[in-house]
């Protein structure tokens, strides 16, 4: 029922540790992937993206890994900080579909002080 959707998978990490958030995507034809961070009461905020012709992309304290063989995406956050606490969504899209985003169900990241 409705309550099922409220129980997001939760990852709890110690401040300063590295975090890894995983995502399985659905469409092997997807050629663009993106990670968003959503804080309570706010809209999704862009973190990092990656195209299907890449396996890895790095940003500031974040790295996205793409494994097309098993349709898996991961977000690595280095030296996790309390401000990283949020819900993280992966999304997939296709260029030939106007890059309409298909969102995953999300993972809640809790950073313990």
């Amino acid at each position, binding site marked *: 029922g*409705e309550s099922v959707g409220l129980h997001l998978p939760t990852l709890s990490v110690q401040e300063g540790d590295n975090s890894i958030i995983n995502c399985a995507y659905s469409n092997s034809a997807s050629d663009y992937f993106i990670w968003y961070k959503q804080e309570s009461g*706010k809209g999704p905020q862009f973190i990092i993206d990656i195209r299907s012709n890449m396996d890895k992309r790095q940003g500031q304290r974040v790295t996205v890994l793409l494994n097309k063989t098993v349709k898996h995406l991961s977000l690595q956050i280095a030296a996790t900080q309390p401000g990283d606490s949020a819900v993280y969504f992966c999304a997939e899209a296709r260029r030939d579909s106007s*890059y*309409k985003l298909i*969102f995953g169900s999300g993972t809640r990241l809790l950073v313990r002080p």
Partner: protein
Amino acid sequence: NAGVTQTPKFRILKIGQSMTLQCTQDMNHNYMYWYRQDPGMGLKLIYYSVGAGITDKGEVPNGYNVSRSTTEDFPLRLELAAPSQTSVYFCASRPGTGGGKETQYFGPGTRLLVL
């Protein structure tokens, strides 16, 4: 730039009432999108537009209508509100294609409660 703005922030509707959710972007983006997010879930696409005068259905368009008369504005219309439309609605926009223009930027959302 204000980015993507949405009004109202919160609204309570009675079943059968209608309303328009407003979305405006000042970045001259061609593409605009409307999503809904149910509690604890990811976002689902309702409608989108690739430019002024052009709109198309997304994954969950039933019960909604849109228009795109200008580049800046992309209002979402609910004609006969139903409890199933209780959700948080997000508008997003992106510039175009290539060179990072695929990234969608989101507004702060409109929380809608239908009773």
